[in-house]
């Protein structure tokens, strides 16, 4: 069966002008994205922004990518049940080849990401980059900071050791101290009045499903708005 000539897609003007070679070109030519891509590549970083403090957000994003990759790997061996959680982390760190390495990268990158996101926020604050018209991106950033800390809080419980248990006890108690909605928050986080198997299940769900989905959506918006607004002016 052959495709009739009139059903072959017409070439876009830009495509007839200059066809890109190579594998990337094969895709780009078919999407008619030459101009869009060119526009993205040809952006000039303003001189005042060629400074390491303007790299903090980017470093935080690289850490996020590392955390996603190592987190997916940890989930191969981790078992989110009270009976098996601690032992599975132990086995992962002592018997799985390079398991200690993957887990250490995840652990240290997690701490570094919280730090980097916070420093990025300080840079944006002290350079006044949150001002009109960038208020919405500031708010997105605040949400991203909270999500990052949510990752830290939920991930902390997963090894299911004494430190994890009591940190979660204190953390959820603090949520419970909020007037009116406190008790609802507490039982929603714990899956009951006490920390139990339900708590571990809920925290695992938040850590590997809910928060990753949220952070991806917000990161997309964050980056889109950076491109839309451009880098803020110099001080």
């Amino acid at each position, binding site marked *: 069966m052959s495709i009739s000539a009139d059903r072959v897609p017409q070439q876009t003007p830009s495509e007839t002008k200059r066809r890109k070679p190579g594998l990337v070109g094969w895709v780009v030519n078919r999407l008619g994205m030459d101009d869009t891509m060119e526009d993205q590549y040809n952006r000039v970083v303003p001189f005042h922004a060629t400074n390491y403090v303007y790299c903090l957000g980017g470093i935080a994003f690289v850490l996020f990518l590392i955390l996603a990759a190592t987190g997916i*790997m940890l989930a*191969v*061996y981790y078992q989110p049940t009270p009976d098996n959680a601690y*032992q599975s982390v*132990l*086995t992962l*760190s*002592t*018997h*799985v*080849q*390079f*398991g200690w*390495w*993957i887990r250490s990268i995840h652990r240290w990158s997690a701490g570094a990401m919280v730090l980097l996101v916070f420093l990025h926020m300080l840079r944006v604050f002290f350079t006044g980059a949150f001002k009109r018209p960038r208020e919405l991106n500031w708010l997105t950033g605040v949400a991203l900071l909270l999500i990052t800390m949510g990752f830290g809080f939920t991930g902390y419980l997963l090894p299911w050791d004494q430190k994890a248990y009591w940190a979660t006890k204190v953390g959820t108690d603090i949520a419970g101290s909020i007037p009116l909605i406190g008790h609802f928050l507490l039982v929603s986080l714990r899956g009951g009045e006490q920390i139990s198997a339900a708590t571990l299940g809920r925290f695992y769900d938040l850590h590997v499903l809910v928060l990753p989905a949220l952070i991806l959506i917000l990161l997309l918006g964050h980056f889109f708005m950076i491109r839309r607004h451009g880098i803020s002016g110099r001080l």
Partner: protein
Amino acid sequence: MTRSGFLKWLLGIFGAISLAGIVYPVLRFLKPPAALSGAIGQVANVGPLSGFAAGQLTTVAVNDQPAAVQNLDGKYTVYSLICTHLGCVVETAGDAFRCPCHGSEFSPTGVATRGPAKLPLPTYHSQTQNGSLLVGPIDLSRVPYPGWYKGEFS
């Protein structure tokens, strides 16, 4: 070869080496360790069951490591004889364990009862087959924290 062509090759080679440095650990990571795969792992045959008198501890060697077989009415348990204090070889007397270095003593179930040792003696996975006792790796469910039994992953 042009200079830029050479540099491209060089970049490609370094890139491939860097990539291999990531891919190799990931592939090793995905391979399940013997302790988890359900198999008993490296199995050592420590001899016929008739060699282990009931109610007694019989010293054997498991992969060149000192161990003792306990026979409690046909239930065989294999204990590591490496003291959980500082790693001396624990001596057996009847059904009891005693370390000659610092006087740590362990109950017939391997629990530390006297002396400086705090942690129980580890046990090996074991099973009987055709009248012989087969011994596998250390039973991980009794390992209290990483690095305790160093011989297992050194």
